[in-house]
C-alpha cells in the first residue's frame, strides 16, 4: 500500500511520464445488447499490472498474471472480484452477470461477461467500481451500444453510475 499512500500525498500523477509504464489507471468496458440473442455482451479491458496488484492485495500476494501457468484459481478470484464490482440493472431489475472467462491481449486482461435472456431493454444502469479500492484516481470508461444507441460514461469514485432510458 505504501506506493499508493505516497501517491496521494504527493499527487504527482503527472510524473508517471515514463515510457511503457502506463501512467493512468483506466479500464474500458464495452457493453453491447444483441437483441437476436437476447444477450448483453460485456468485454472489460483492465491493465494486467493493475489487476495483478489488486489480486495480490485482496487474495494472494504470490499471484502472477500471464505467467503461462494454470490460472483456474486466479479466474475464480477475478470472477468473484468483478461480479462484486460491476452491477447492472436492466428494466429496474438487478441482472445476473455470468463470467465467461478472460484472455490476455498484450498488457491488458480482457474479461468476458454476459447477461442472458434479456428480451428488451427499456432502462439500463451500470455501476463499475473496479479497482476503486486500490487506485483513487482509477477511471472506468463504459461504452454502451444498446438499441442502436451508443453512449460513453466515465465512472470515477465520486460518480460510479451511468443510467440510460429508452
Amino acid at each position: 500500500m505504501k506506493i499508493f499512500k505516497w501517491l496521494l500525498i504527493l499527487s504527482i500523477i503527472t510524473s508517471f511520464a515514463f515510457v511503457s509504464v502506463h501512467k493512468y489507471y483506466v479500464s474500458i468496458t464495452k457493453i453491447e445488447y444483441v437483441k437476436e440473442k437476447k444477450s448483453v455482451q460485456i468485454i472489460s479491458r483492465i491493465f494486467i499490472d493493475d489487476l495483478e496488484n489488486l489480486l495480490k492485495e485482496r487474495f494472494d500476494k504470490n499471484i502472477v498474471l500471464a505467467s503461462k501457468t494454470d490460472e483456474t484459481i486466479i479466474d475464480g478470484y477475478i470472477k468473484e472480484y468483478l461480479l462484486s464490482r460491476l452491477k447492472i440493472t436492466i428494466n429496474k431489475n438487478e441482472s445476473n452477470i455470468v463470467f465467461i472467462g478472460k484472455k490476455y491481449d498484450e498488457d491488458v486482461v480482457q474479461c468476458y461477461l454476459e447477461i442472458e435472456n434479456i428480451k428488451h431493454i427499456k432502462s439500463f444502469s451500470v455501476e463499475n467500481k473496479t479497482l476503486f479500492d486500490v487506485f483513487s484516481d482509477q477511471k472506468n470508461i463504459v461504452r454502451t451500444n444498446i438499441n442502436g444507441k451508443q453512449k460513453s460514461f466515465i465512472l470515477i469514485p465520486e460518480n460510479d453510475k451511468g443510467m440510460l432510458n429508452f
Partner: protein
Amino acid sequence: MNKLKYYLLTVLFVTVGVFAQQDEEQKEPQAGHTNQNKFKQLYDEFSTPNMYRAASGAPGSAYYQQQADYKMDLELDDVNAKLYGNETITYTNNSPDVLQYLWVQLDQNMRARDSKTPLIQGSGVNPAAQISTYANTYMSEGFDGGFNIQEVKGANGKPLKHMINRTMMRIDMPKPLVSGAQFTFSIKWWYNINDHVNGRGRSGYEYFKEDDNRAYVMAQFYPRMAVYNDVEGWQNSQFWGRDEFALPFGNFEVNITVPEDHILDGTGKLTNRKEVFSKDMMKRYEKAKKSYNEPVVIVTQDEVVEKIKTKSSKKNTWKLYAENVRDFGFATSRRYIWDMMAVKIGNKDVMAVSMYGKEGNPLWEDWSTKAVASTLKSYSRMTFDYPYHKAISVHAKQQGMEYPMICWNYGRPDKDGNYSDRVKFGMMSVIIHEVGHNFFPMIVNSDERQWTWMDEGLNTFVQYVAEQDFAKWYPAALSEGQSAYPSRRGPAAKITRYMGGDQDFIAPIMTKGLNTYQFGNNAYSKPGTALNILRETVMGPELFDYAFKEYSRRWMFKHPTPEDFFRTMEDASAFDLDWYWRGWFYTTDYVDIGIKDVKKFYVSTKATKQGKDIIKRFGMDEKDLVYFVEDGSEEHTAGMKSESISNNSAPLKEYLMDNFSAEERAKMKEPKFFYSVTFNKPGGLVMPIIVEYAYADGTSKTETYPAQIWRLNDNEVSKAIASDKEIVSITVDPKLETADVDTSNNAWPREVKQGDFDKFKNKVKN
C-alpha cells in the same frame, strides 16, 4: 486503345451530367466556404521560413544556439539521502539578441512543499479511506523536497540578484549580456533526495531494506540553464512534472564524491579511472574493451554480496568530463554489479554498459548490455553513427528514463529469479527505448517541454525497427514459438483501438503533453505508428529512410521544431506530405475506408438507352461505340455473357487491324469482365486505398491507389476495373497496414465476421 478509354470517359461524362441536372433543381442558396480540402498545403499551420530556419527544413543561414558549460562539485550524503552541489555555469550568448536576464530551471522544486503540481490535479473525497491513507493525505506535510539555494554569485564572488518563480529562477546580471559575450556565475545548493519508488519520480533512490542500502539514479539534480532560441525566446513553460526538458548543449566537468565502496557511472568520460578502480577492475575493463560478443563483468555479484555486509566511511571522488551534451545524469550505489562490452559503430568502438543490483539477475546479466549494443547499431543505421563513447543501462525499479549516455530501466525477476515474458520483453523494450533516446532528444535536441511527440514519437518509431533487429541478431532473446520480436508499438493494427476510441479523450499529436488525455497513446504510440505507416506503406523505406536520416543528420547537436521535421521529410524525398501531417498530426481523425458497392458490367455492341442518347447528341452511328450494361439493370438480358467483344464488333476489329501490328495485337489484353468499384471513407483521414482483387482462378493482384484519389471527393470514389478474369472478392487493406479502425466494411462480398465476444464464448464452450 485510346478510343476505348474515351468510351469509358463518356460513361463517366453522362453520369456527371445527370448529377449536374439534379444540382440545378436545388433551390436553397448555398453558403460559401474556405478551403477545407484535406490536401490544402500547411501554410496556415506552419510559420514562415526565415534566416534561422529554412524552408527546406534545414537550419537556416543565421541559425544559432546558446551554450551552457558547467563545472560542478557534488557530494552525496548517503546516510541522510541528501545531495550537495556547487556549480559554476558559463553561459555563451550566441544569439543576435541582448539578454537582460538568464533563466535557470529548478526542476526539483516540483517536489517542494509549495509546489503547484498537486494543485492542478483534480481529486475527490472517497466514501472511505484507509487510516494510513487518511493520515498521509490530510494530516502529513509530505516530503520536504525542492532545492535549497544557498548562494548565487558572480565570477567576482559577489552575490547576484535572483528571483525564484516555482521551477524557474531568474538571474539578474549586473549588465546586459550582448551577442557573443559570456557570463559566468555559480550556485550553491542542496536538496533531500526523494524515494523514486514510493514517491514516483524520474530520479531519486530505491531503498533496499534487507541490506539497508540505497541505489541512486540521479538526474535533474542541479540547477540547469533553460533554452533561449529563435522560436520561444526563453522557455517559459514551468515543469509541472510531466512534460520533460528543453536544454542547451555544453561541456560538463563534474566531480562526484560518494562513499568509497560505491560504484558510480554517469554522463561523460571517467578521467580518474585509476584512482577509483581496483587493479582487478582495471584488468577486466581492459578485457571488456576488446570483447565484442559477450559482456565482461567489472564488478561481480559475489563481490557485491560480500561488499554490502559493511559500509565504508571513507570517500571517493569520481571525475567525469563530457563534451557537447545537453544534460548530465549519474547512478551510484554499493549494490551495483557492473558489466561492459565493446560495440563497433562505424570505425569506432563504443562501450555498452550495464549497472544493476543482484535482484535484476538473471535477466540483466543475460540481456541488458546486449540490448544496449544492438540498439546503438540499429539507431546508428537509421540516423547517424552514435557519437559518444559509451551508453549505460542502469536497472531501477519502475523506471524508464533517459539522459545523455545513461538511462534507468525497469524489468525485475521475482525473488527466485523467475520472470514472465511480460517482464522480459518489457525490460528489453524499455532498454532499447531509453538507449534510443540518446539520439532523440539527447542529440537531435527537440524541445520536450513543448512537443513530447518529437522525441517520444520518433524514438518509438526507431525503437520498433531496433526491436525487430534485436530479435534477428539475438534470436535466443525470443521465447518458444516466437519468430519475431513482440513489439507493442509500431504495427498499424495496434493503434486502431486508440484512434477509433472515444473522441472526448483523444487529442491531436500536435498538443502539449500535459494537456493530453492518453499520454502514452498520444505522444508515443500514435506518432510512432504514423511514421511506421509512412515508411512501410505510404513512402516506402527507401524514400523514407533517406529523408529521416537527413533530418537526423541536419539536426544532430541542434534544436529542431516540428516544422523542421515535417519540411525535411518532404524536401529530401520529393513527396508532398502536407496531407499526411495535417491528418495524422494536427487532427484526431482516423482511417476507415470501405467498399460501398461493386457493380458488374457487360460490354455489348447493341446500343443501350443512354448509348442512344449519346449517339443522337453527337450525331454518331450505333457501331461507332460499344456499350456497357449493368448487371441486373433493365437492359440486362439473360443471355449476356462476360466476353471480349473484339470478335463481335466489326468497327473495333477494323480499328485494331488498322492501328496495330499482328505482333502488337497478340500482346493485347482482352478484358471480359467489367466492374465499377465504389470505395467510401467513413473515416476523416485520407490514405492510399490498398486493394486486393482475388480472381476465380485462385490468383490475386494488389493495387494501391495513392491518397490523392480522395482530393475531389472526400467521401467516396469509384474505379472502373476491366479484367480478363472474373473477380470473386475484393479486400481493402488486406494486410492491415493503414490502421483502418473498422474492417467490417473492407470486403466484398461482405464477410459476416464473428464478433470478438462470440468467438471467445464459443472457444470457452468447446
